[in-house]
């Protein structure tokens, strides 16, 4: 990497001490900005709505949602797919960018990982909500029961349960481990009850060479595991649909198509959080336009893959020669859900072309808007997959049109509030930028400056 690019990622006067002071002061000293309180208030209200709609759901039953035969999956499953997709970019940033040694991950990996964690929590709740008898969700586990029954291993729903649980445990372990050195920093700087709080959480991390060696080794193992996890989790979720014979679901392209869509919405959400957090906590010099530029490029890359998947899906539907598959497509374009399909194309295919322009990628406002439309577009994509495929399948006597109810929306916006609330609490309790990763980046810059000075003592000042 050229030295100028690394310089653009770091403020010129940033030292180890000033970085530690700034980031830990956000947690330990600075009073929360007004925007944080307003956001907490809104998110807490939405979370209460979530609790309320779940209470109604558990007392009244699954009938309060817009679910019916033939659309038996509706909003809960669409939201599971959407939330799990958002989680994936956090994992990819922490793992794949680590393996490929990209310096721009250092400033954004912490909140990307936290985002992944809380998105999985939201994603994991939905299938349980959707069960109808949620108290029996543990039937999916192979435990020694008195009924003498085993889970149905050939069912994608069992794979789903195992994959999402694995993903949750992985993300929690990864997030906590990368927090350990930073918790130690907070422990050493906090006073009073906070010192005890962070001392217990830091588990006695002291930054010895042996600690770091095993830390690095475990990080590399986790990074190597992250890619197969990302591919299996969303791949398996797509198999929930693709393994069936429903036209509109039954495509072999689904696993890679879903993974690309997941990463697209995930990178959009990272960009959204990057823009929001940098202005909320005045981190404009640490999360730079260069970071936004890279995030914009990732959004564009995955938007293009998603667009390609759309064309391939249409091509396969017509090339297969199956009447039912073609009908699904004509129905998507002209049927009752057509506005959803065309809005999806507008958000995911048309609007994202703006990301070809560097000025758009480097503008926080433009990127924020595109991140919102991309997430909306991905939500609409999941909507059209789940609704249009099932509402009209082989038997016309079986056709029906179903729309989400008020409780569907209450649960959905409530889960958005829960996600926001968890994230807002997280950034007040934990450093929202990974201090040890930034320190390593600063040390690299110092080393390269030193070698440049030694190579050409006279010219160094001109660079």
């Amino acid at each position: 990497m050229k030295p100028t690019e690394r310089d653009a990622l770091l403020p010129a006067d940033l030292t180890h001490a000033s970085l530690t002071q700034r980031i830990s002061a956000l947690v330990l000293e600075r009073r929360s900005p007004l925007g944080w309180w307003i956001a907490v208030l809104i998110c807490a209200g939405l979370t209460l709505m979530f609790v309320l709609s779940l209470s109604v759901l558990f007392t009244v039953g699954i009938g309060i949602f817009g679910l019916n035969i033939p659309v038996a999956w509706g909003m809960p499953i669409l939201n599971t797919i959407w939330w799990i997709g958002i989680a994936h970019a956090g994992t990819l940033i922490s793992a794949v960018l680590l393996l490929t040694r990209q310096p721009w991950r250092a400033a954004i990996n912490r909140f990307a990982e936290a985002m992944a964690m809380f998105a999985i929590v939201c994603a994991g709740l939905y299938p349980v909500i959707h069960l109808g008898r949620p108290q029996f969700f543990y039937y999916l586990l192979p435990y020694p029961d008195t009924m003498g029954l085993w889970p149905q291993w050939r069912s994608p729903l069992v794979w789903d349960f195992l994959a999402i649980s694995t993903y949750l445990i992985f993300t929690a372990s990864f997030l906590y481990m990368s927090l350990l050195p930073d918790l130690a920093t907070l422990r050493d700087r906090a006073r009073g009850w906070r010192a005890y709080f962070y001392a217990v959480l830091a588990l006695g991390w002291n930054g010895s060479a042996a600690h770091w060696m095993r830390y690095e080794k475990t990080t590399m193992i986790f990074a190597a595991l992250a890619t197969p996890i990302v591919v299996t989790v969303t791949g398996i979720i797509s198999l929930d649909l693709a393994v069936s014979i429903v036209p509109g679901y039954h495509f072999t392209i689904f696993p890679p198509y879903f993974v690309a869509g997941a990463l697209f919405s995930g990178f959009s959400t990272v960009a959204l959080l990057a823009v929001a957090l940098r202005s909320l906590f005045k981190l404009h010099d640490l999360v730079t336009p260069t970071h936004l530029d890279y995030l914009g490029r990732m959004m564009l890359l995955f938007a293009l893959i998603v667009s390609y998947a759309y064309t391939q899906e249409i091509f396969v539907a017509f090339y297969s020669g199956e009447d039912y598959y073609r009908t699904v497509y004509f129905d998507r374009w002209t049927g009752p859900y057509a506005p959803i399909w065309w809005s999806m194309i507008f958000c995911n295919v048309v609007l994202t072309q703006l990301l070809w322009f560097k000025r758009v990628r480097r503008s926080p406002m433009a990127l924020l808007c595109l991140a919102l439309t991309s997430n909306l577009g991905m939500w609409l994509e999941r909507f059209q997959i789940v609704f249009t495929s099932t509402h009209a399948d082989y038997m016309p006597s079986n056709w029906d049109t179903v729309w989400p109810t008020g409780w569907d929306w209450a649960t959905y916006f409530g889960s958005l509030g829960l996600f926001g609330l968890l994230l807002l609490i997280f950034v007040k309790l934990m450093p929202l930028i990974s201090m040890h990763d930034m320190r390593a980046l600063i040390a690299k810059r110092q080393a390269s400056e030193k070698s440049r000075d030694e190579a050409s003592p006279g010219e160094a000042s001109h660079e």
Partner: protein
Amino acid sequence: MSEATSNASKRYGLLGRFHDADALIVAIRTLREEGYRELEAFSPYPVEELNEALGVRSRWLTVVTLIASLAVAAGTYWMVWYSAAVDYPFVVGGKPLHSWPPFALIAFVLAILSAVVTAFLGMLCGNRLPRLYHPAFNITMFERASNDAFFLLTNVGTLTHDEIESLRSRLTDLGAEDVQEVPP
């Protein structure tokens, strides 16, 4: 008990503070050549050369993780096959009793899960965490080990008073900005 002997028994080691990683690495190499073996180095971010200088190597974590994940994959596959083909044979959707593609998928997912858990717990066990106490935590300047300074802790449990004093001046010669005694 006289004051001199009680002082000596109260020492755990000498803690030297260094400004940068390079000075710390040079100090470690020199002290090791001079016969000091019980050295601990601390840094605010991972520095690979520190372990080379200390002569510390450890490979078991990767190997144990690999073995654990392979064992869990094999065990899972066996459990799934036994339950679906032997203990409760039940044909669903015309699929064979031994449907290896989904069975392998489940084995793969659980292998990843066991690798994650093994690597994480292995990291904690290898680092002897959680252990909230370390002698160096008694020293105020050690707070900078998680901020911007590098530390070298030399165990002096078996050294005499004079040897400790010569080690102290040796650390200063090697570039330590501050040297302090650490109680046990």
